[in-house]
């Protein structure tokens, strides 16, 4: 007896098989792209135009609309990768391995964006591009973890061994995530404390908060599009000799 109803189990079983996943990705990508474009335009309009200037920081604060959502994504994607790593190690599901390694460059991209936009915000506000404070340093370590995962995967020839090594690294590195999150509370840092996630009373005005949340959701949709595109490439690489890829090639020719 399965915990899930048969239909749900069947859906996951079929979706996790490479040819079905490939077709499913093709079907979802256009819709995800439409939703992403609508959200990003709304978020940019709200953040760059509608929202008022900050009374202390002027218009420089508008970097928040990419800085904070990108930083959230850098943590979110890493946690997802660690979960995929756990699934790959325990159940040996090929799709979990593919999703793990496909997520790594996107996570690295968001971490890079968080660091660079933070630097571009820090220069006019703090007077420096960079300080070795706890938040900035732990986020930089996150970038190295992402790059480490990418290069470790590239360095091991055998696909299954590479996936196992990368899964272990992703799981071990997850200790850095709470360190990044709580760094502004545990240490006395130059980086400011949280303004949004204080749910009882967010210290940010609603006209500034709404575009920020829209941008955060837009970045989630971006991740879905990007990860599906990379996963399609990764699946083709791994399964290039299989029957479904041969059929795919015949159909497109």
């Amino acid at each position, binding site marked *: 007896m399965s915990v899930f109803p048969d239909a749900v189990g069947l859906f996951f079983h079929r979706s996790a098989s490479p040819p079905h996943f490939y077709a499913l990705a093709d079907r979802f990508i256009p819709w995800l792209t439409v939703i992403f474009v609508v959200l990003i335009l709304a978020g940019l309009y709200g953040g*760059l*135009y509608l929202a008022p*200037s900050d009374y202390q920081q*002027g*218009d*420089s604060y*508008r*970097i928040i609309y*990419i*800085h904070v959502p*990108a930083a959230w994504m850098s943590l979110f994607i890493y946690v997802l990768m660690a979960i995929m790593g756990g699934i790959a190690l325990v159940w040996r599901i090929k799709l979990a391995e593919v999703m793990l390694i*496909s997520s790594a*460059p*996107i996570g690295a*991209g968001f971490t*890079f*964006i968080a660091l*660079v*936009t933070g630097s*571009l*915000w820090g*220069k*006019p506000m703090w007077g420096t591009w960079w300080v070795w404070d706890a938040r900035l340093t732990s986020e930089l370590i996150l970038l190295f973890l992402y790059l480490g995962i990418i290069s470790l995967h590239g360095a091991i020839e055998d696909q299954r061994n590479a996936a196992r090594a990368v899964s272990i690294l992703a799981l071990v590195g997850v200790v850095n995530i709470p360190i990044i999150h709580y760094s502004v509370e545990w240490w006395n840092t130059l980086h400011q404390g949280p303004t949004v996630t204080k749910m009882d009373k967010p210290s940010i005005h609603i006209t500034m908060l709404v575009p920020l949340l829209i941008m955060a959701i837009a970045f989630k949709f*971006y991740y879905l*599009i*990007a990860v599906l*595109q*990379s996963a*399609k*490439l990764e699946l*083709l*690489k791994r399964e*290039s000799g299989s029957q479904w*890829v*041969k059929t795919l*090639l*015949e159909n*497109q*020719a």
Partner: protein
Amino acid sequence: MTLQTFFAMGGYAFYVWSAYGITFLVLLFNILSPVLLRKQLLRQLSLRQKRGNR
């Protein structure tokens, strides 16, 4: 608000627009690179398949 004051970003134009520009480029790269690499791979695979069929 005129277009000029919008782009001036209250004197922070360099910081704000560099941040948005770099973000745009990184996000674009992470979409385009898998798409282009996949197209290239599909071309190679279909060439190999045609040779194999002969």
